[in-house]
């Protein structure tokens, strides 16, 4: 935050960085060939829903847009225990570019309506042949990715996560600060 914003105590919430999401399709190919992780055909956006009528209206708009495609299955809307809303989008596992477009549509609508500051993260789950699951999490405010591999209740496979990070380091901006690899237990799609 800038010096004057600190002095005057008027920190504005940081706006989300949306562009890096389009680098995911090529990274998905790398994960597939190098680590044997297949996209599971879902993707989720996690955001903070604001109180009031305007937000409810925006959310309806988003769901209506995503469901307008006759082939697309229903969008699942869930609330987590931290008060964040998750929108789970389904797509053909091979069409990861389409999935990213869907996620991007959610982000742009939220941002157009002035709720872009409430975007927390986006999650694209991958699955290995042996059943291990890894979510590629995109942090909107930092503009970076990190892997999240839950193995059970409140347990994560750190070795696999670091492995995925090393595979993707050349393609995606990976989060360097391990403190920010926040666990999203019970995230839809994982």
């Amino acid at each position, binding site marked *: *935050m800038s010096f004057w914003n*600190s*002095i*005057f*105590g*008027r*920190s*504005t*919430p*940081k*706006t989300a960085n949306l562009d890096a999401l389009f680098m995911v399709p090529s990274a998905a190919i790398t994960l597939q060939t190098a680590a044997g992780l297949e996209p599971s055909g879902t993707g989720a956006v996690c955001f*903070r*829903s*604001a*109180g*009031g*009528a*305007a*937000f409810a*209206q*925006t959310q309806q708009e988003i769901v209506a847009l995503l469901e307008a495609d006759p082939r697309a299955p229903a969008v699942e809307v869930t609330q987590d*225990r*931290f*008060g*964040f809303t998750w929108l789970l989008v389904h797509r053909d596992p091979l069409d990861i570019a389409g999935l990213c477009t869907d996620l991007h549509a959610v982000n742009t609508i939220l*941002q*157009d*309506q*002035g*709720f*872009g*500051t*409430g975007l*927390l*993260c986006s999650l694209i789950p991958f699955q290995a042949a042996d059943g291990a699951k890894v979510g590629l999490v995109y*942090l909107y*405010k*930092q503009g970076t990715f990190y892997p999240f591999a839950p193995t059970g209740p*409140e347990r994560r496979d750190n070795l696999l996560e670091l492995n995925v990070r090393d595979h993707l380091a050349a393609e995606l901006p990976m989060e360097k600060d391990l*403190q*920010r690899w*926040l*666990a999203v237990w019970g995230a839809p799609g994982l």
Partner: protein
Amino acid sequence: MAHSRFIKDRGLTARMTLTMFLLGALFVALIVTLMYLFSGYAPIIGVIGIGIAFYQWWSSDKVAMRAMRAREVTPEEAPELHGMIDRLCALADMPKPRVGVADMDIPNAFATGRSPNRSVVCVTTGILRTLNAEELEGVLAHELSHVAHRDVLVMTVASSAGIVAGMITQSAQYGGFALFGGNRRDNNNGGALPAYLIALLLSLVVYAVSFFLTRLLSRYREMCADRAGAYLTMKPAALASALQKITGEMAAIPQKDLRSSSAMNAFFIAPAISGASLKTLSSTHPSLEQRLEQLARIQAELGRPGA
């Protein structure tokens, strides 16, 4: 075209700038007058005063944690609290502060530390019992805004004039005559005494004025933290209901239990003293009505249907 729902409060910024300017002018006036009256030892007092202010700021996290008998908790001990702060920090794009819990029945929370990288957010067990998850998150967002705005630094700098003036006033008890008068060339009491009395009087005035100005600034900073916190969580109503719960309960707690925590008042979310005299002028926190009014305005802006 993306638009922001953030409303700039120009009035608040202007009032705060004026207050900070007045505090700065007060400090300069005090130092210049002291330098003029006494050429020898007087600057030492100023340096010591600034040194004390610096030390308060530098070790604010440790001192505050000790004063509140708080202990740091790990993510394993308090997963919910850490999860909440993790998410807020990811939303605000700021480094995660350390997390402390104080075993106290007063429902309260504070944040302190010399910089955002070395800060502590601390909650009492009372607040964990009193508030629900949504309200607690509003309170934590308020505290994180204090960290982001570097309020400990701002308030320490703002109160340095008061600290120096307070030291000079107190020096009367410890033979300040010798300290100030000793270096006068005409070493008779007649020359030193009036100058010292002027300094004493001036310090008293500066101390009194700076007391009210720092309290005023503190109230403005609270309003700013409320605003930034409400925009971060996008749920002003949750913070409003938390404030109502906290201040409602605070008034019910007897005065005696609260006195021990008075040193920390400026950094609390709601003041731990519920006195009534001179309340509006000398309180560190704005009135509940003012805070609720601001939160209601933010709620209205967030709920307004967009273009």
